[in-house]
């Protein structure tokens, strides 16, 4: 694996991606906006202290929906965009291997939304600590569940979204269709969130570890599928 090629491809994709205003807004404004919105709700809603931990967890976990949706959308654009622009052939003609191209694109789709999410989550945690400290008598964040959610579950979910998008991209030839299909990657995050707020399960260390385990298995399967789908022969003879 030539990591310089991976970095070159990732940097190129990120440059193109960040040249789009809509995406810049989605990456910066939305996570920070959500963080401020949730903190404001916590500050003004007079939530009883015994319900606060669950509410804070659910708000933090809400970001997981976004963590699934945004990388999927970017990855879809990254793959199908190349297909639409017919730029895959010259890219595949370079010495970069299929794996390096796929990984570079994956990193480009994964990293910006993940960093944006982390920024949003950390902002949420800092604000929430500030407004709940007096009610709880202690700083709720950081805790192991939050750390595991932010730094383990969120990347794994984002990775799953990228793998899913690569598989979708092989079958569609329009960016919009790919993005719509890619948005389905938000479903697992949404399902977990709904289960959480309906009380179907409690977000504790054990449950988040189980979620991470399931996501890791799914990620591995999707990565293998994406790797099998993303090869020169397949792209040039079937991705039409």
């Amino acid at each position: 694996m030539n990591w310089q090629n991976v970095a070159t491809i990732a940097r190129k994709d990120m440059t193109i991606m960040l040249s789009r205003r809509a995406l810049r807004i989605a990456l910066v404004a939305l996570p920070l906006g959500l963080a401020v919105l949730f903190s404001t709700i916590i500050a003004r809603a007079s939530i009883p202290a015994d319900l606060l931990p669950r509410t804070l967890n659910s708000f933090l976990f809400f970001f997981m929906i976004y963590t699934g949706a945004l990388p999927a959308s970017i990855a879809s654009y990254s793959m199908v965009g190349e297909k639409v622009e017919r730029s895959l052939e010259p890219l595949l003609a370079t010495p970069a291997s299929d794996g390096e191209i796929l990984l570079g694109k994956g990193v480009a789709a994964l990293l910006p939304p993940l960093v944006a999410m982390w920024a949003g989550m950390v902002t949420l945690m800092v604000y929430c600590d500030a407004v709940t400290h007096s009610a709880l008598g202690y700083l709720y964040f950081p805790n192991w569940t939050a750390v595991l959610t932010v730094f383990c579950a969120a990347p794994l979910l984002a990775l799953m979204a990228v793998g899913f998008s690569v598989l979708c991209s092989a079958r569609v030839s329009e960016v919009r269709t790919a993005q719509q299909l890619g948005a389905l990657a938000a479903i697992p995050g949404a399902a977990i969130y709904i289960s959480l707020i309906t009380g179907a399960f409690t977000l504790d260390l054990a449950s988040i570890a189980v979620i991470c385990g399931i996501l890791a298995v799914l990620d591995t399967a999707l990565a293998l599928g994406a790797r099998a789908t993303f090869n020169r022969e397949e792209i040039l003879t079937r991705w039409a």
Partner: protein
Amino acid sequence: MITIDSLTRRFGDVTAVDSLTLTIGEGEVFGLLGPNGAGKTTTIRMLAGLIGKTAGDAWVAGCRVGDPATARQLRSLVGLMPEEAGLYPDLSAARTLDFYGRLYQVSAADRAERTERLLTMLDLWDRRDVRVRTFSKGMKQRLTIARALINDPPVLFLDEPTANLDPEGAKVVRDFLLRLRQEKRTILLNTHQLAEAERVCDRVGIMQTRLIAVGTPDALRSASGDGATGDGATGDGATGDGAAGAASARATAVQLAVVTDAVVAAARNAVRADPAATPRADVTVAGNTITVPVDKPESDNPGLIRAIVAAGGEIQFVTGIVPTLEETYLKLLSSVNGAGDPAAR
């Protein structure tokens, strides 16, 4: 530099390239001509290591095509200009070349030097920081040529480089191809533009899933009437059978002060002197010019001229008429496909 031995590619039941055998020497510009679906792009994709082969073998710049051990090396030695420009609209010309240069492991200094040199030569230097989105089709095409050269490859594969360009844009690209030819790069050029092939290529091959004929443009034209390959290179797999039986299109046009029946009869008898000769169209007369079909102008013309003079003909001009490459191309394809005009298929 490029050796192809019985290279075959099938997609399911469809054979895209059928037992292609060809050798392209170092510094040679070879044109691959053929109608759509003839397998030209598939050939280039196989040789550039983009898709696999079904059978046969090929070597490009010493690398065996399809060998995973040398796949990366093969791609680093090859420059590819695909039919579609495939540029990133949101990158500038300079960023585009920098991106590909990095992937080809070109050093920063070489990237900068080549970017400036190529963009200057292709008249894009002033637009180097402008997004490709704003480029005209001709500018994009020129940028794709620069992209194919950023790794300074000894072998270039160009797939329809002037397709869809206006005459001016096509000329710029063609002139650049002539420049590349002077640099002694080995170039395989897929094209529909027969005039372009004639002007740029050392040799051309006519292909329709298999190689029908191969030779220099002159040799192919000459051979189109007698069923041989242009350079007799049957070892390249082109049998030249496709040309067999096709009537010769070569002729000698003789302009006279006055055309008389005696002169026409003398001309007719002169070219019928060889009873073993292939039957030809008869002598035709248009104004003061008689056109006489000939097999071998070099040996037939002296006798023809003598006969006309002996019959009292006063010769003003003698012109050799040879078929164009286009006529040769159409004739060869037509004879492979059976009767009819291949262009109409």
